[in-house]
């Protein structure tokens, strides 16, 4: 089946498929480069690129982009600090309840976010975590932590036990052995987990929608949603915001190709 009879024909077909599939993304970029205002007859090509959409987007959403960035970075740090040692302990130590924890991690990924938001809103209201960056970091990590535990555990399970034994023979305690041997060797799994946690958190909409109620702390996803709520008359700045909000995905696809493929498949557990 892999014998290709018409390589050029296949490339042409592949190109057509990708062009059709990615047209909405092309349209987003194209519309973002059009002069704002007259959007009824948006040109098919950005022949006279105009950056005013981006200027408006940065003026109105710049703060929200920063909020998203801080929340996403915070969530990456929190998720890795919690998940990586846990993943290691799950494969390294003989624990009767390790299987139960793993089961809980798997099940947790199936719990609809609205359930978590429903309960958290009321607790957050009481303890003052609504409209706060730490509150969002904690809630957003509900997607990063289980994912990172599963990805890292899968890889650490295949590490040769001799590696850690050698560290112990050299007199390293469990914590030292973990930090100086396991973490460096598991680098790929940790990077994959970190990248995806960033992406999950950056894209989060549900917690932004339910756990923030004022403008002081507002991720860019909610900024876009608020644009959509009103009648839109300036699509070019909405699309410019959309492009800016998609940048992490674009960077990830270009720079971290191999991690993305691994994570996408690892995402089968998500």
């Amino acid at each position: 089946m892999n014998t290709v009879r018409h390589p050029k024909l296949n490339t042409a077909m592949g190109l057509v498929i990708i062009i059709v599939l990615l047209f909405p993304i092309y349209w987003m970029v194209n519309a973002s480069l059009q002069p704002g205002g007259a959007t009824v007859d948006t040109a098919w090509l950005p022949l006279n690129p105009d950056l005013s959409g981006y200027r408006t987007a940065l003026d109105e959403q710049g703060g929200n982009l920063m909020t998203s960035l801080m929340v996403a970075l915070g969530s990456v740090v929190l998720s890795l600090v919690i998940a990586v040692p846990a993943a290691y302990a799950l494969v390294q130590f003989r624990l009767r309840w390790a299987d139960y924890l793993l089961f809980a991690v798997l099940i947790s990924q199936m719990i609809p976010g609205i359930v978590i938001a429903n309960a958290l809103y009321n607790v957050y209201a009481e303890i003052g975590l609504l409209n706060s960056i730490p509150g969002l970091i904690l809630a957003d990590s509900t997607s990063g932590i289980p994912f990172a535990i599963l990805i890292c555990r899968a890889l650490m399970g295949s590490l040769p036990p001799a590696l850690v034994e050698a560290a112990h023979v050299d007199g390293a305690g469990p914590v030292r052995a973990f930090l100086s041997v396991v973490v460096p060797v598991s680098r790929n799994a940790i990077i994959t987990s970190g990248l995806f946690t960033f992406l999950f958190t950056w894209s989060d909409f549900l917690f932004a929608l339910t756990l923030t109620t004022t403008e002081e702390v507002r991720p860019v996803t909610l900024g876009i949603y608020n644009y959509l709520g009103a009648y839109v008359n300036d699509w070019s700045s909405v699309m410019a915001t959309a492009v800016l909000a998609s940048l992490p995905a674009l960077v990830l696809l270009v720079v971290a190709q191999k991690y993305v493929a691994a994570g996408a498949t690892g995402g089968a557990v998500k």
Partner: protein
Amino acid sequence: MSTTDVHAHRTTTPPADRATGGGAQVTAVRPPRISARGRAWRQRLVATLFLGPAVIYMVLFFGYPVIQNLIMGFQHYTITTFFTDEAPWAGWANYTEVLGSPLFRTALANTVIFTVGSILGQFVLGLGLALFFRRRFPLSGALRSLILLPWLIPLIVASAVWKWLLDTDSGALNRVLMGSGLIDSGIPWLSSTDLALFTVIVVNIWIGIPFNAVILHGGLQTIPQELYEAGSIDGTSRWQAFRHITWPMLRPVVSVVLVLGVVYTLKVLDIILGLTGGGPANATQTLATQAYQLSFATFDFGQGAAVSNILILISLLFAVIYLRLNRRPVDE
């Protein structure tokens, strides 16, 4: 890399067994001055240190919300609760009210149509793409990785872009259709009660294609080439090869993709809220959006909890199926 990951998740116990074997050897080489009991105690301490934060997090951010949601489902938990701090016991009142409302029936029906439609479309198109990109031709790798893009951009971005593409008066789709003379006036893709659910499903299919294509492509890579070579000697057609080699070998991956797709689609909120907000006239209201609106628009957290508990129940049903499939060895 991609396929090994899928299988690594499939086997839940073996890696742990191997590693604990290593752990036993570790204790054997430790200096003898520490007693056996001391060693066991120390190991437990380290395990607690490593696992403790994760356990605490899981309890606080998954365990607590689920239990709290179950309790709230039986309470009159409304806006007044915030002032009085009282949520009187409601018994089954939230459930009877929710289940008896016509809106629930609409939402349930929409959830089923949305889920089945989305999964069918995503799967068929994803499988088609996976099969196509198994061929090797110039640029196939680069083009294949571009497929991922719709899956990586934030869902709310995707819905913003599609909302603009599908705009009745100025959207690109209607402009093409009108320009080609197929229609005289713009089709109200998102604002017609007859079309909105269909349109939302199409957009959700677009979002789900990359995930299906990538996982199924990974599954296809594990099928030994020799099977096809043997088949071609016997003179099997392409369709026969698919029917008798590809499909049976791919089935375990297929079931995981489908079950995960269902669990994932049941909780979709971003796309529907972004495109239609559940409207027009509840035409795109699903259980997830109804739960959201009961809790956060009408501030009846009790009824919102009741709907989302029903959603958990449906998700868990599929989660159990998933775990059963997951435990089974691939070649069964």
